[in-house]
């Protein structure tokens, strides 16, 4: 398939990744590339392993007792399971936004500053500047600039989710993983998040899990279709939605099941 003149580099690659919870296989031998400065959408019915795959990209699955894996994931060509790569460093480079917005019960400012503080940044002026930059980056600054000291739990659902994005952006990761970031939001808040994703891909590499196929079609450059723990098909979003090679993909994107 012809690619645009500057072939995008693969920021992350999963190679033959199998992940089990105990003995239950959640994803089977998935090999998938996440190209740099592109949005890769992971779609598929519930329980197909797309969220598990996303969470394995920054090793969040390590937290689940009994989770184990074969194969590996590479970040800039280095295995993220290698002993020489500390998981804390990995997570600073591969940030994550969760399905349900989960701001800390702290002030708006402290939420965004948290990642910077644990990263060792103490200088108050620098902290304030980075917080502002991140909030602007998440298109939230104008709405919260006068109430930075108020609790983040007082924000609306859409604002909370953008705060979580701002919090993830603050530590300037290279990759941003988003696990159904708009599934709990109303259409207006969703539109804002999608707009934001468009802007962010200039700076970040993004992988997004979504249930919403229109959303995948709107925001992503590439789409990967997961079914029953397997990667069925992946390719440019337009091709997946208009001319899929696999019957299962076609059935899913046309709404015959799912």
């Amino acid at each position: 398939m012809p690619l645009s003149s500057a072939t995008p580099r693969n920021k992350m690659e999963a190679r033959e990744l199998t992940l089990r919870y105990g003995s239950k296989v959640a994803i089977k031998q998935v090999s998938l590339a996440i190209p740099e400065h592109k949005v890769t959408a992971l779609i598929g019915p519930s329980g197909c392993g797309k969220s598990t795959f996303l969470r394995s990209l920054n090793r969040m699955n390590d937290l689940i007792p009994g989770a184990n894996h074969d194969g590996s994931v590479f970040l800039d060509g280095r295995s993220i399971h290698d002993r020489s790569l500390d998981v804390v460093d990995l997570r600073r480079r591969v940030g994550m936004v969760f399905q349900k917005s989960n701001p800390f019960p702290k002030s708006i400012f402290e939420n965004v500053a948290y990642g910077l503080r644990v990263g060792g940044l103490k200088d108050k002026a620098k902290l304030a500047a980075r917080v502002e930059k991140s909030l602007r980056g998440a298109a939230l600054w104008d709405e919260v600039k006068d109430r930075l000291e108020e609790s983040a739990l007082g924000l609306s659902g859409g604002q909370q989710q953008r705060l979580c994005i701002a919090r993830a952006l603050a530590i300037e990761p290279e990759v941003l993983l988003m696990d159904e970031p708009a599934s709990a939001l109303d259409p207006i808040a969703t539109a804002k998040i999608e707009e934001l994703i468009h802007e962010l891909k200039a700076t970040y590499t993004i992988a997004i899990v979504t249930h919403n196929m229109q959303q995948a079609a709107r925001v992503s450059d590439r789409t990967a279709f997961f079914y029953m723990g397997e990667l069925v098909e992946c390719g440019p979003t337009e091709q997946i939605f208009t001319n899929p090679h696999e019957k299962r993909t076609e059935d899913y994107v046309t709404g015959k099941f799912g």
Partner: protein
Amino acid sequence: MLDRQAVMQEQDLAPPVALPMLSPAARRRQLKEKAIAALITAVAFTGIAALVLILVFVAKEALLLVTDTAAREEASFSKMFLPQLVRKGKPLAYMWQPVSGVPKVSMIPLFIGTLKTTAVSMLVAVPLGIFGALFAAEFAPRRLREVLKPTIELLAGIPSVVLGFFALMVMASFLQDTFGFTSRLNAVVAGLGLALAIVPVIFTVTEDALTAVPRSYREASLALGATPWETAWKVVLPAAAPGILAACVLGFGRAIGETMIVLMASGNAAIVSANLGDSVRSLSATIAAEMGEVVVGSPHYALLFFIGVELFLFTFILNMLAGVWTKKVIQRLKGGAG
């Protein structure tokens, strides 16, 4: 303005119909509901009434200090709270000697005794309980946690007389050998004995508060590149602050009111001093030790009830302060949302 009539007609909404009488079945159901609600209310109020009656009884007996002339003479408030001339030619002093030719009824030595034992026990039990709970909730492997929690809860079930006996026989000798206390039984021994009793309380309540912190907070923190320790210290602990405060208040209530351990291990000498190595007599142990021999209706009798009122007031005030503080913390955590 909308024409309501037109809106209703346009949607083909029916005009209101007069309701028929309540069916007998529905009436019976409603009556039954009401009867059950009344019963539950009555039971609840019985419990509250019992508590209020206890309080009224204790306060009534203590009131003799005001109403009874002999008691007013012997145990006036100035005698209870201000330094008194104990012996000619000696400086004024605080002394608790309620049974004596000239009764000396200063509350100050008892306050100091309770303060010292409670302070020692809280200083030991709060960090132990909180860090133990933090370990169990955040760092212990699942198997260990499943053993740890029931074990510590079992410790809460040990009768205080057994803890007191242990403090009296084992800890007292060990601490004296180690630190060279002049009095074998003192505030440190009693305080540590009390700590044995309140660590499980603080541990259990704190552990519950920590496990109630949503997993999403931990995930968010770890995903931002925080270590498990940073997550526990900066996210989980603050989010559980109201519960941890409640744990400390509960522990404090137990420490200030606990009688048997203090009675056995404190030495029961009403001494005014700042030295933790001196024997002490606490408010609660004083009631327990003296109530058996007191003449009913005497000033001494009223004094012991007054001590009960004081104990009640201390816990009440502390609970209130803690309540206010908890509300503030929750307000700060939740903001306008909560």
